[in-house]
């Protein structure tokens, strides 16, 4: 995987939640907008499971526009005329930050020798990046989905590092259903004969397994209403069913396209490690079993947003966080927005989300 982003190397080894440490950690990141003189206008944007640092600039492999170009830019809700937006590739990923495809100290790829990491480990690396950039306190940390988990983790574990915390379509813990879908994806990858216990970097990658993992996950990102509206039972480039196992239906063709497109830009081992980190995420568990403890004494302002059609991280999960924040006496806003697209609503055209984000970042 190529990396064209600026990269910093953390000054020392990164201690990990699972014990031990990661010897040499590189963090690749992109920035948008100017940092002001007193370094007070930085927003850390945290990306989702298969996201990357290319928020508002073209992806170097696919050439596609950045994943949140509709939200981040001049005069947009996350206004780069006012804010210095930083987005770092999470460790464990494959777009320039240290992950299983990176070289271990012995000069060969880590593969499955890469340690299992947590969301907090990812955030620890982000904090290392902020230290390197000389940013003591963020104007805000912002994230959707897994990005929201990172935002919550930063707020809970490094409470003095941010003034605002914006968490969209996310959760404080992975549910059994969340873990189950991830396990399905991981098993698909590990069942691909090309996976070879993760040591495939010399030869062909387990693209078939990774594509199936992506297809399964993609279903969880959309609502039934969105799938029905987009595809219904429409047939793909044919007038009648084939009585075979081609992609007869448009929805099958769409999923196959999503799966194969994904393998061009993503490493299968990274998918294993990052889904594991998400499954391990339980912010209350980290703080004595009581979520409110995670936010005790915080002076940050929080905003949580959920979508009524999101069944991956439903509104109840956001409410759970809001109740804990209320119990901790934190300044919190919460709104459930109505949008038809399911979990992916946070990436799509939902004007109410634009207004909430713009207003909250103020």
């Amino acid at each position, binding site marked *: 995987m190529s990396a064209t982003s600026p990269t910093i190397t953390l000054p020392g080894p990164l201690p990990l939640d699972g014990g031990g440490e990661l010897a040499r950690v590189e963090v690749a990141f992109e920035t948008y907008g100017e940092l002001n003189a007193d370094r007070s206008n930085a927003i850390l944007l945290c990306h989702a499971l298969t996201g990357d640092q290319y928020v508002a600039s073209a992806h170097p492999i696919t050439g596609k526009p950045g994943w949140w170009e509709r939200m981040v830019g001049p005069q947009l809700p996350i206004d780069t005329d006012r804010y210095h937006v930083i987005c770092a590739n999470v460790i464990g990923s494959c777009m320039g930050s240290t992950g299983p495809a990176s070289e271990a100290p012995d000069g060969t790829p880590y593969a499955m020798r890469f340690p299992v990491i947590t969301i907090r480990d990812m955030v620890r690396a982000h904090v290392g990046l902020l230290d390197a950039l000389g940013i003591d306190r963020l104007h805000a940390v912002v994230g959707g989905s897994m990005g929201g988990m990172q935002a919550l983790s930063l707020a809970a574990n490094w409470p003095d590092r941010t003034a605002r915390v914006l968490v969209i379509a996310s959760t404080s813990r992975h549910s059994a259903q969340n873990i189950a879908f991830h396990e399905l994806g991981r098993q698909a990858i590990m069942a691909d004969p090309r996976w070879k216990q993760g040591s495939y970097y010399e030869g062909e990658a387990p693209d078939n397994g990774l594509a199936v993992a992506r297809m399964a996950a993609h279903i969880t990102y959309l609502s039934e209403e969105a799938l029905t509206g987009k595809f219904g039972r429409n047939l793909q480039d044919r007038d009648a069913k084939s009585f075979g196992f081609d992609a007869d239906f448009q929805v099958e063709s769409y999923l196959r396209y999503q799966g194969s497109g994904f393998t061009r830009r993503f490493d299968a081992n990274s998918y294993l490690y990052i889904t594991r980190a998400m499954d391990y995420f339980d912010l209350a568990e980290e703080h004595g079993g009581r979520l409110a403890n995670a936010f005790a004494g915080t002076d940050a302002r929080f905003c949580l947003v959920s979508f009524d059609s999101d069944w991956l991280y439903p509104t109840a999960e956001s*409410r759970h966080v809001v*109740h*804990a924040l209320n119990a901790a*006496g934190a300044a919190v*806003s*919460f709104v459930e927005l109505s949008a038809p697209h399911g979990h992916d609503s946070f990436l799509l055209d939902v004007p109410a989300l634009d207004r909430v984000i713009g207003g909250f970042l103020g």
Partner: protein
Amino acid sequence: MSRPANGLRPDLAVIAGQIEPGSRVLDIGCGDGALMLALREKACDVRGIEIDGACVERCVSQGLSVVQGDADRDLGDYPDKGFDYAVLSQTLQTAERPDRMLGELLRVGRRAFISFPNFAHWRTRAALMLGGRMPVTRSIPVSWYETQNIHHVTILDFRDLAAEKGATIVRDWYFAKERPIGRLAANSRAEFAVFELAR
């Protein structure tokens, strides 16, 4: 008294005027955030709860800390005496259990402001007595079948409830035609009442 320059509803104007600058305030049923904005001007740390998503979105868009939720259920999460004031404006009569709501108000706030439409106003009484139908008046503008007011209350009823809850009435205000009126015969003359309670 006409509406003050800030355009606040008279009960909210009274409440905004009474709350000291810099106070911590919880506005339960904060609507579009009018009181919260006025209190923010007074450097108060003010939070809101509102059930209507569109109202919440408007509040958050203005930088207010408002949680979309149901006051009947969500007040339990707030710590004891976490606020200097808890405010419940024009919402008591919509609560599932106004008695419990009042108890929660006095638990989370050191003081509480409550405003409500007075069902014993002479116009309401007349509408029911003479018209024989559920009143639709200036202060109770929605027909019985679609109103959110499921627990109509009078000023005397409220005083009884406050006493039952062990609350002290610190001050009270009464309004008719959006103007303040005296306490005399308020139970039949006032369209709205505002109470400040302490326990």
